């Protein structure tokens, strides 16, 4: 399943934490028409590079699916940042 939400947490020097929930599903929905419009060009580019376009789409889809649970934390005395794809 592709990830639907990304959580970004920001901490400032006063230990105040701001948590931002990014609805990735909206980004995917916005990107969908762009991908549909660009798909003939992507298909042609794949053919020019002698790459199976269906295989390419499958691999990209698998990468999107595997993004879930990716986490990045950066902690510093004065600030901190955390990025988590749910």
């Amino acid at each position: 399943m592709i990830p639907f939400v990304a959580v970004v947490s920001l901490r400032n020097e006063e230990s105040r934490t701001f948590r931002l929930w990014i609805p990735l599903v909206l980004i995917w929905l916005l990107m969908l028409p762009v991908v549909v419009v660009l798909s003939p060009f992507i298909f042609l580019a794949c053919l020019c590079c002698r790459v199976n376009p269906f295989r390419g789409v499958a691999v990209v889809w698998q990468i999107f699916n595997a993004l879930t649970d990716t986490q990045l934390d950066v902690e510093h005395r004065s600030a901190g940042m955390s990025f988590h794809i749910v």
Partner: protein
Amino acid sequence: MSEHRRQILQMLSEGKISADEAERLIAAAEEPSAAKSSDAGGRGTGKDRPKYLRVQVDSEDGGGHDGPTKVNVRVPMRLLRAGVKLAYLIPTAALQKANLAMHEKGIPVDLTQIKPENLEDLVEQLSDLSVDVDQKDSDTTVKVRVFCE
């Protein structure tokens, strides 16, 4: 020190066994416990395959101006496997160009011979990967750990 080890060293000190025999006996005595601990860790077994590749960086500023910085990255192994599949999409012509460039640099590797299953095996073997780097400068200490969990 375990009882077995103490007995073996006692026999060695009494001259009952040679140093080689003592070494063999100690190795044999330690073998079951090593096997047990590796089973407990679950590495290499199909059941407990690692789920994440972790990269931890701890940086400490000796001067105390900035304070310590910690970076923690957790990448799902599924993402690595999916990323490796991107290699399937590299056109043969590009691989040949890369081969040529590597040969010019004195690296005799034929990338066209790398099959998708080889890359899958490579990711599988990452479960045993553990990299620890400690760097100490005059005013900074950096520790990097890369491991699977």
